[in-house]
C-alpha cells in the first residue's frame, strides 16, 4: 500500500488529477483545474473542534426554544422541534413524524457525537477499525443536509399562514439556533480530514517495521 503523500503525489479534490508536488510546499494549485490543493486539510482537527463546540452550545436552545409560534384568536401557541414531531404523530402522519424526528433530532446529535468520536480517535492515534470509521465519516457527510427539513417547514408555514389576527405563524428564535447548528455541522464535517484516520494506521504500520514491504 502506497500513500500518495509519501510518494510526493497529490490528488486534486476538485477535478481528481493526480500530480507531483513538493511534500512541504504550503500553497499548491492544481495544474489542470486551478483549484487550491492540500496534502491534508489545514488545521483540520482544531477547526473541526471549534465548529463542533459551537454546535454543542447552540443545539441546546435549538431544541428548547420554540421554532414556531402559531397565533390565533385564542392566543399564541409555541412549538419546539419535538413539539412539531409530536403534532405530526398525533395528526395521523406517522411516517412523516418519523422522518422529521430522524432529520431534526437524531441526525444533528448523531453528527455531533460521530464527529467528536472521529476527532478523539484521530487525536489518540487509534488504529481501531479504520474502514468502519471512514464509512462513518462518509455517512456523516452525506446525511447532514437532511436536517434542513425543519428550516424549510418553518419558512413555508410562515409564508403561507398569514391571516392576520385570525391565524398567523411566525418562525421563532429556536429556528435560528437550529439552522445555525445545521450549517455549522456541515462546515465541521467538511473541515474534518478523513485521511488523518489512515495516517495513524500508516504510522503504526511503519513502526512495526513492515517498511520493507512498502518498497514495491
Amino acid at each position, binding site marked *: *500500500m*502506497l*500513500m*500518495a503523500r509519501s*510518494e510526493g*503525489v*497529490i*490528488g486534486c*479534490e*476538485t*477535478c*481528481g488529477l*493526480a*500530480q507531483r508536488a513538493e511534500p512541504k510546499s504550503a500553497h499548491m494549485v492544481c495544474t*489542470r*483545474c*486551478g*483549484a487550491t490543493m492540500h*496534502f491534508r486539510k489545514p488545521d483540520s482537527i482544531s477547526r473541526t473542534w471549534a465548529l463542533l463546540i459551537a454546535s454543542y452550545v447552540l443545539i441546546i436552545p435549538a431544541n428548547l426554544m420554540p421554532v414556531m409560534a402559531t397565533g390565533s384568536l385564542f392566543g399564541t401557541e409555541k412549538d419546539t422541534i419535538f413539539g*412539531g414531531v409530536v*403534532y*405530526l404523530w398525533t*395528526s395521523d*402522519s406517522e411516517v*412523516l413524524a418519523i*422522518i422529521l424526528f430522524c*432529520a431534526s433530532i437524531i441526525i444533528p446529535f448523531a453528527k455531533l457525537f460521530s464527529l467528536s468520536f472521529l476527532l478523539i480517535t484521530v487525536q489518540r492515534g487509534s488504529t481501531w477499525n*479504520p474502514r468502519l470509521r*471512514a464509512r462513518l*465519516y*462518509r455517512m456523516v457527510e452525506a446525511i447532514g*443536509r*437532511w436536517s*434542513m*427539513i425543519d*428550516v*424549510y*417547514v*418553518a*419558512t*413555508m*408555514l*410562515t*409564508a*403561507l*399562514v*398569514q*391571516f392576520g389576527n*385570525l*391565524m398567523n405563524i*411566525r*418562525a421563532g428564535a429556536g*429556528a*435560528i439556533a437550529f*439552522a445555525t447548528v445545521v*450549517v455549522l455541522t*456541515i462546515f465541521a464535517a467538511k473541515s474534518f480530514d*478523513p*485521511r488523518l484516520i*489512515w495516517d495513524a494506521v500508516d504510522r503504526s504500520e511503519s513502526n512495526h517495521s513492515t517498511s520493507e514491504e512498502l518498497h514495491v
Partner: protein
Amino acid sequence: MDSKELLVCDQCDLLLRETALEPGGKAFCARCGNVLYRCQPDGLRLSLIFSLTAAVLFLISNSFPIVTIDSQGLTNSTTLLDAAERLVHDGIPSIAALVFATTFLMPALEIMAMIYLLLPLHFQRMPPGFSVAFRLIHFVKPWAMIEVFMLGLLVTISKLSALASVVPNIALGAFVLLMFSVTAAAANFDRRGYWKRVADIRQLQEQVC
C-alpha cells in the same frame, strides 16, 4: 507521463492505478471502500440534457406559486422567493438568506455552470473560464438542497391540511420534476470524462494549428 494513469483516493490518500471498467461499473478504493469513479460512457450527454430540462423547470417552479391554502374563505399562496421575502419582513433575514441560498441561488448556479460547460463541449469547444465554472460546480453542489426542500414541502402540506384545505399549484409539480432532473444531471456529470474530452479537444486544436 505515467502519473496520468495514477489515481489518489481523496478519502484515504491511497495511491492507485486506474483500471478499465465496463459501462455502468464503479471503482472502489481497495482500502477505505470509497467510490473512486464510475464508468459513464454517455454521462456528459445525459447530464447536458438533464441540466437543460432543469433550467426550464427551474424557471417554471420559481415563477408560479407552489401551493394555495384556503381557510374559511381566506386564501393565501406563495412562491419560493415570496417565502424568503416574508421571512425578511418577519425580522429573521438570516434564515431567509439560508433558504434563498440553498433552494434558489446554489441550484441556479449549479445548473447554469453545468450548461456553460457542457453545451459548448457538445460542439467541441471550451468556453472562456471553464475551469472556474468547473470549480464552481464542486463548491456549490453540497449547498444545493432541492431534494431536502421537497421533503420539507411534504411535511408542510401535511401539517397545513389539518388547518386549511391545501391546493397544489403548478410549481409544486415543476419542483418535483426539477428535483429529479437536477439529481440526474449531477449524477451523470462525469468529471473524469469531462477532462478527458477537454484533453482530446486541445490535442485536436494543436494538430490543426
